[in-house]
């Protein structure tokens, strides 16, 4: 019987409660989950391992931690989808869409999600990016 290898999802965020909740949900979707607690830890991890998909928080020890990490991941593994998750949205006029060609040029993330979306929405997004 063929054993299906679970896809590996890396989640990087400085909020340990968020990491716990995400790990619980995403593991239930049937993935292998690794969590990292800071931009620095995330950078160290991707030096040694290649995940199948990454979910990264925008603001960690730096205001642009998410963008920096996204850039580094894409540089090393161009085919690995990256989702930028954030609690900061259009309420204060900050909207990072990747809908225009201009935005896509420098942001390089595959998707942008607002934290607090329903687990089934997240599941659909992950499957879409992994082409499952």
């Amino acid at each position: 019987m063929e054993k299906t290898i679970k896809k590996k999802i890396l989640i990087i965020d400085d909020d340990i409660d968020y990491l716990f909740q995400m790990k619980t949900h995403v593991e239930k979707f049937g993935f292998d989950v690794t969590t990292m607690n800071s931009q620095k830890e995330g950078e160290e991890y991707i030096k040694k391992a290649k995940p199948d998909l990454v979910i990264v928080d925008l603001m960690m020890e730096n205001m642009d931690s998410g963008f920096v990490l996204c850039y580094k991941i894409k540089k090393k593994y161009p085919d690995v989808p990256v989702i930028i998750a954030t609690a900061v949205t259009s309420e204060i006029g900050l909207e990072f869409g990747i809908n225009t060609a201009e935005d896509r040029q420098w942001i390089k993330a595959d998707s942008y999600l607002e934290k607090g979306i329903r687990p089934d929405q997240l599941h659909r997004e992950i499957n879409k990016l992994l082409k499952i």
Partner: protein
Amino acid sequence: MENLKILVVDDEPGIRTGISRSLKNFSVGFPFMDDDFQYDIIEAGSGEEALILIDQHHPDIILLDNKLPGIEGLDVLEQIKNKEIDTMVMMITSYASLDLAVKATSNGAYNFIPKPFTPQELRGAIEYITKQLFLKRMTKKMNKAGKEVRFMFLSVLSHELKSPINTVEGYLKMMKDRELGENLVDYDTMINRSLERIKGMRNLIMDLLDLTKIESGKKLREFKQLDLNEIISIAIDSMEPYAIQRNVKVKFKPSHDVTFYADADEMEIIFNNLISNAIKYNKENGEVYVYLEKTKTDIIIRVEDTGIGMAQEDVGKLFHDFVRIKNIKTQNITGSGLGLSIVKKLVDAYDGKIVVTSEPDKGSKFIITIPLDI
């Protein structure tokens, strides 16, 4: 530093040359600046020519004579005003024409200089207008920077408040969906984490209120002679439950009378924050030492701990808003990140200084020096 551009608009070539010569090697400086301002002169013989040159060269200062062959100076002034550019106009007026001077300045000219003027008078006027220009541009820059700082503060604040709200909601939803089964006991961790995060939110809001009051200057300051030894003792007593919980001992021995004329609330905030940090960022069975000293000139407060310490590069960011040092040792420590920023603002208000030294795994020392005469 790039030269400032002066456009001279006068129909008499002799006057234009004279002005050019007077300002060619002229320089204006502020005592705090390394480089002085120098000038490049552009000339125009008519109002029409001037308007073309303004669009081409964007002069910083315009010397404008009213008597011109085509459109007169005041009309040029009107058109310059409509362009809404960053330039300062000095009107050249004829002697005994106060009327013109008034008209010019009420129409946007910054200043006027009556003919005939000596080179010294010209240079004096240019010096004055240059300094005004510099100050105007600096103020604009600082206001812009101020807005940027406030915007960043709000973004980070929004993030800091939304994160605990999201996680508490997340935990509640997991409980609602019985994600860990039917036994309530299995949800203890989630429930405790939620309560922790809510406590964090409450602390953040309280710190924000302190910060806002201090920054707006609206906090009513009540100065009186305070016994600092007593204030420290009260602060330490109020933290005893927390210190016991973290298994940390706080030691303070009042050595001599230390009275200080200050606001009691502000002193409490400073001591509370420093002592609570020293307890928070400490080790099991760790210690905190508080020293208070009064010299002829200053009050010296030292709070030392045997805690986890921090790297030199982290010390630099310590007093910024919302900065909390995040590493594997501080993972389970909560805080708003505003405590030290508030302490710094208060110490600044008393003309004091804070010095921090720290060594990872050994501990940190916070030394505050406040002068006795404000």
